[in-house]
């Protein structure tokens, strides 16, 4: 049977999130014809952002009641399209949006769900997925046994698709209305830190700090991050203690990142942290404990007190700029 993939885009403030392009890369690797669904208030306008990526169609579901993401309002339209347009693979990037939405869609359409996959192998029309488990300490190879399959893909492992030119046909699709359960859930607000830095998922350089930074977290790391145009990340311990805001957490249960350059500063290197950054191209660790596990994954380790080493690093970089 000919397969046919539906990529679900993610919208934020009227635009398509760049993370969507990881799911597009997945769809290209699968190799079957694919469509991209842009769903949300303002989708009609945002759809133009994804017409040059080789999708057969860009489907647009634009409805005023889809202004803020609530799973119970988004999932029914995805499920209805899978049926009416006969998609058999449904893919979304494993952001917090994708992780919330994909399983509910899977349950609606009776599909198996492969979460957070880092790779796909296509063999004679059969897909197998590779996915990290046990905090990245093992990779499982798995297959979905149902005819329909839902997949969420790791942004850190599927590089954002490059535009391939051309223009996909744009087609408006009807809003299938909310689930009955939507009557029992109400969007209240979305608080997001005024972050002028690049997103952790997209940054070329990340400067991450741990518990060791204490109240000086921003004072010590910001000058370095500013200089390098870097995103700032944190360990769980730094977030739990309130030194860094929770959305900065990198790790098994936080953001999974794979920048060109990752600084782990005053971070011990617990497996849960490593699970979120081991895929970085170059890792630098600064830690005063020469035996800290972070040094086992660091390409360049500096055993030093971070409170002197980081300001020195800033001075050195400025001097050489």
């Amino acid at each position, binding site marked *: 049977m000919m397969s046919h993939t539906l990529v679900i885009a993610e919208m934020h403030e009227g635009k398509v999130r760049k993370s969507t392009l990881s799911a597009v890369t997945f769809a290209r690797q699968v190799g079957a014809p694919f469509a991209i669904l842009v769903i949300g208030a303002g989708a009609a306008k945002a759809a133009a952002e994804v017409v040059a990526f080789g999708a057969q169609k860009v489907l647009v579901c634009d409805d005023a009641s889809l202004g803020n993401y609530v799973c119970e309002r988004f999932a029914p339209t995805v499920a209805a399209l899978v049926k009416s347009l006969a998609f058999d693979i449904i893919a979304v990037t494993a952001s917090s949006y994708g992780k919330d939405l994909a399983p509910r869609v899977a349950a609606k359409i009776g599909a198996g*769900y492969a979460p957070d996959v880092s790779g796909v192998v296509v063999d004679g029309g059969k897909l197998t997925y590779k996915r990290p488990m046990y905090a990245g300490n093992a990779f499982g190879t798995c297959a979905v046994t149902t005819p329909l399959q839902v997949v969420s893909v790791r942004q850190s492992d599927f590089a954002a698709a490059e535009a391939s030119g051309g223009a996909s046909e744009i087609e408006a699709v009807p809003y299938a209305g909310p689930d009955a359960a939507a009557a029992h859930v*109400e*969007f209240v607000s979305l608080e997001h830190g005024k972050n002028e830095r690049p997103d952790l998922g997209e940054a070329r350089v990340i400067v991450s700090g741990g518990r060791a930074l204490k109240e000086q977290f921003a004072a010590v790391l910001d000058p370095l991050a500013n200089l390098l145009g870097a995103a700032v990340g944190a360990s769980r311990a730094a977030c739990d203690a309130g030194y860094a805001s929770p*959305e900065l957490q990198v790790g098994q249960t936080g953001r999974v990142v794979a920048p060109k350059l990752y600084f782990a500063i005053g971070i011990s290197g*617990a497996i849960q942290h490593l699970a979120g950054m081991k895929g970085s191209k170059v890792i630098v660790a600064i830690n005063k404990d020469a035996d800290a596990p972070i040094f086992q994954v660091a390409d360049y380790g500096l055993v030093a007190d971070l409170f002197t080493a980081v300001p020195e690093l800033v001075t050195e970089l400025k001097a050489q700029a």
Partner: protein
Amino acid sequence: MKILVPIKRVADPDNANKLKISSDAKVDTTGLEWKPNPFDEYAVETALRLTENGANTKARVGEVVVVMFGPKEAESTLRAALATGADRAIRIDANDADLDGDVVAQGLKAIVDKEKPDLVLLGKQTVDSDSNQVAQLVAEYLGWPQATFAATIRSEGDKALHVGREVDGGTLHLKVTLPAVVSVDLRIVAPKSVRSAHTAEGHAYPDGVRFAALMAIMAAKKKPLVEEKLSDLVPGATRKIEYTSFALPPARAAGIKVKSVQELVQKLKAEAKVL
């Protein structure tokens, strides 16, 4: 409020005990410690906080029922939850190998249909499979609203919850009316993350989950723990995802220690070419 908390026990790799893969490409858990899934311990703590006055954690206002799909030897995890304050436990006898998120979610739906809780409170993910799906699946099977990755929960009487969800880039606040499904994130056990309708505004809990006193551990042995069969709950349940093999992650090439900040900058520029 009656709360159902699904809990699982997991083989936990840490920095000392590394996971092994057997010659036939299966996960070998020998040497690993079996622990309750940390997120499920947080869910139990959250359920306790939601069914009490924070100033008097001995008296429960409502009921907390813990449920596990797993083998007999995993019962100690249920007993541990009873010792911290849960009222009753249910174990659905099953081999881990016959389960996946979907089978668990279908089984939970069957239990909810019988138990009729106001809230199903789960961990956001199990740290062995790292799947992050059971809450969302069971919400759909029940036709209930879902609030995943909860970092804060405030109850509004016994009718509704205000949930602060940790999402990429911030916190998304939802109000759900009960019955509902909520999955909890790491920071749900911070001192002021959960407030029940019975707890005074501003009450601060100790950070993290509560420990059971010796007396409570003894008493937990007498609390009800019933066993059911998976095949009775979900006849003919089959997995929707099958694992064929496992492998260790590729090792990272050993790095070097630099002696100074100057050397670091020089290496990053000349050798790694990332600056």
